[in-house]
Structure formats: C-alpha cells, structure tokens
C-alpha cells in the first residue's frame, strides 16, 4: 500500500512536471533548496518526489496569499489558493511556526502555487510513557541522585544552551548514537526524554 502511494505520488509528480515546465519558472532545482536535510533522515522518498518542498513553516501573509518555508537556512515562497488542500491541521491559518511541512506545488507562470500542504503529524507515545509536569517537578526538586533518574534534553545543543530544565543533560537526537555513553549504565534506571514539545 505504501509503495503504491509513493508510486502514485511520483507518477502524479512527473505528470505535473511535464505539463508545467515553462523555462522561465523560478523553481528551486537542486535538492538542497527543495528539501531540508533533517527531513530526509526519515523521508528518504523525498529524493525522488518531484515538485515538493519540505522544511519549516516560517510565516503566512493573508494579503499576499503566500507562505514562507525555511529550507536549509534559505527561504522559499509559495502561494496558496482556496483550492490548496491542507493535511493534519484544519487550514492554512492553523499553521504555526516552526512546524515542519511538506508542500506539493505546481508552477504557474513565475510563481509556485501549493496544491497540497502536509503538516507533520503528531507522533504517538504510549500513554504509560508520558510524564506530567508535576511528576517531573517533584523529581527535579530531589535531584538526579535522590530521584534516581537521568533527564535528557533531545533538542539541538543551542536550545539547551538557551534554556534547559534544571538537572538535565544535553544529548541532541541526531547525535544520540554517538553519545550513547552519556546514557546511564543501568538499563533499568529511570530515563526521561524531553524536547521543545510535540506539535
């Protein structure tokens, strides 16, 4: 089913590519400008998908009917129309920076026009794994030794430097395999992860 979906997307993408290919269209050509590297960690298929952008939603102008997408530090503008379909959030209005999005577009004259905007869906965590603020606050007040826990900040190092929960250690998720030795030796001890909140 998944393969079928990907194949359909690719086919659809190719079709669009052949229909809309005015030479003057300023479409982002290289993969670097199309898809944020971070997205590719989990979405290898983006490499082959045509006419998509993937990155962080930056801002929206109602007057210009456009959204800005941050891709690898650069920016791309995409227009939207009432026909633009939006997935995982109710509408374009509900997009809040910096939610990761994928934009399917077509080129119209000099513009990129979004046909579909897919917001990153919420990740599911088993109910019993979730921790409430009060519970964490009680542990933090005790400290890692008395509380018997290791608290890990999975966000990038810069976010940790800016402001972290007391007693936490910084292990950015992309570096986790390299920094395994910072995790507790006892595999049965309490290990808590946090980040910038799930969107």
């Amino acid at each position: 089913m998944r393969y079928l979906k990907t194949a359909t997307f690719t086919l659809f993408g190719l079709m669009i590519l052949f229909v809309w290919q005015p030479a003057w269209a300023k479409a982002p050509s290289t993969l670097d400008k199309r898809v944020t590297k971070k997205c590719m960690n989990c979405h290898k298929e983006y490499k082959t998908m045509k006419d998509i952008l993937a990155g962080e939603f930056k801002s929206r102008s109602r007057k210009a009917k456009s959204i800005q997408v941050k891709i690898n530090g650069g920016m791309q503008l995409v227009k939207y129309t009432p026909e633009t379909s939006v997935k995982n959030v109710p509408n374009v209005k509900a997009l809040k920076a910096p939610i990761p999005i994928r934009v399917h577009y077509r080129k119209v004259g000099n513009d990129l026009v979004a046909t579909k905007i897919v917001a990153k869906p919420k990740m599911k965590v088993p109910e019993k794994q979730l921790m409430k603020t009060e519970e964490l606050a009680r542990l933090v007040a005790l400290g890692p030794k008395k509380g018997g826990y290791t608290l890990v900040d999975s966000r990038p190092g810069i976010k940790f430097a800016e402001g972290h929960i007391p007693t936490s250690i910084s292990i950015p998720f992309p570096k986790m395999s390299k920094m395994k030795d910072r995790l507790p030796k006892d595999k049965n001890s309490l290990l808590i992860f946090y980040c910038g909140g799930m969107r």
Partner: protein
Amino acid sequence: MLSPMAARLAAKYGYTNIRVYHVGAPAWAQAGHPLLTTTDFVRKRLGFIVLVDTRGPEKAEKGYIQGAVGIRLKDIPLEKNQFPMDRKAYIVLYSQKTNLSGLAPVVKTISSWGYKHVFVLDGGYDGWLKTDGAIQKGLVRTKIFYIPRPHPGEIVGDEFMNIVATRPKGKLILDVRTTAEASMGMIDGAVNIPVDELQGRLNELPKNKEIITHCRTGLRAEMAYTILRNAGFKARFLNDKVAIIENKLFCCYKALIR
C-alpha cells in the same frame, strides 16, 4: 517531536524504564518553573538581552556582568513598566550563585506578564567569573535598556528614515503592499510592486541598486526580501510598521517602544 524518537531509540538500546516529558521545555516554563541558561548563551547574546543582577545595585557595584541592570529581587515585581514591550525579549536573571529556588517566584511573576523567554543563569555571577566572562565595576544601571537582536537582512528604522530623507542613488525603496494600499499614499520616490506579483516583475527592478522593502507591518517586506535574495538581488527589509497618512510618513516605532 525529538523526544519520542529518542525514546524509541533508547528502547532499542535496551532501556526498560523510559518516560517522555512530551510537552517539553515550553510547558515547563509555562507552569512557572525556571529554565536554566548557560554562560555561553549569555555571552553570545550580550547586548541583546535584558540581564538583571538580582543582588541589587549596592552589591553589583563591586562587580557585575557587563551590560546588566541592577534591580533587587524583591523590587522586580514592582518594576513591570520598565520591562520591554516586546514579549519575545530574552530576560535572564542572575544571583551570586544559581539560586533556583530564590529566583523561581520572580521568574513566575515575569512569565505571568507574558514574557516567553525568561531564564535563570546557571552558576550565577560566580559561574560567570569562572568562565572569564566580561564584568564591570562601579555604578550599575538601574533602568532597563533593551535592544532586540536584528534579523538577518533587517534594516534599522533610523537608517530607513535617513534613506527616505536623502534618497541616495544606490538605494531603491520598494513598497510591496497591495496597489489599493499604495494608492492611499506612498513614500516619495518609492516603487510599488505588491509582493504577490513580485516574482513575475523582477525585470522591472535594477540589479545595481540595493533594494529596501517595506510594507505595513514588516511581514510582507520580509517575504519580498526572500524573493529578491533568491533571485540574486541586493536587498534588505524594514521590519517595522509604516503608515502614510495625508502624505506624511509615520514609521519606525520599534526602537521607541522597546
């Protein structure tokens, strides 16, 4: 987003007692618990944050972090009016040592005023000294003075007003509001191309001038800046409010209200 992924990876490593604080650092702060910031971060943002020495002016005179303002901890709740209008401003409180429990209630108070980024300096003044941070001695400022960190590509209000007044040859002011908005009045010498038409009308713009974009609030000006930069133009944008009423320009309040 990252924590559930980290939790899955940890399970693969064989950890059995994994929990996820899924609401994360923002929720922690919202609940009134302080977040710790590092000396590294403060050093990088020095000059663009509100740094409060909570030991008060008398103690601070013997030595305080460069650029800090001295307000005694118990006086901070009375000084709400002194804090910047910009609720996204970075506010860092410090004491002699970390002193989390002492500073926590005041962090809660400042957060309740709507500030999104309130932190306690990890290690306090002593920690700052240990990392050879820059200090000052003598009289300490007791009034908050805040300059926000400019975004990349931003032009400051003063320079913008100067360009409006002198109209130098090498600069072009591009008004990216709608034609309807522009018909109500424009800056003298400016060119109007609505941002949604800009991509198709780039050939109307000179490559040899720096293009300064503006709109009504700064949002569309930044979008226009993105389009221009992607197309290889030299450009900056005004991230500030602009109104033209009866041919008079009203602009650049950010510097004043901050």
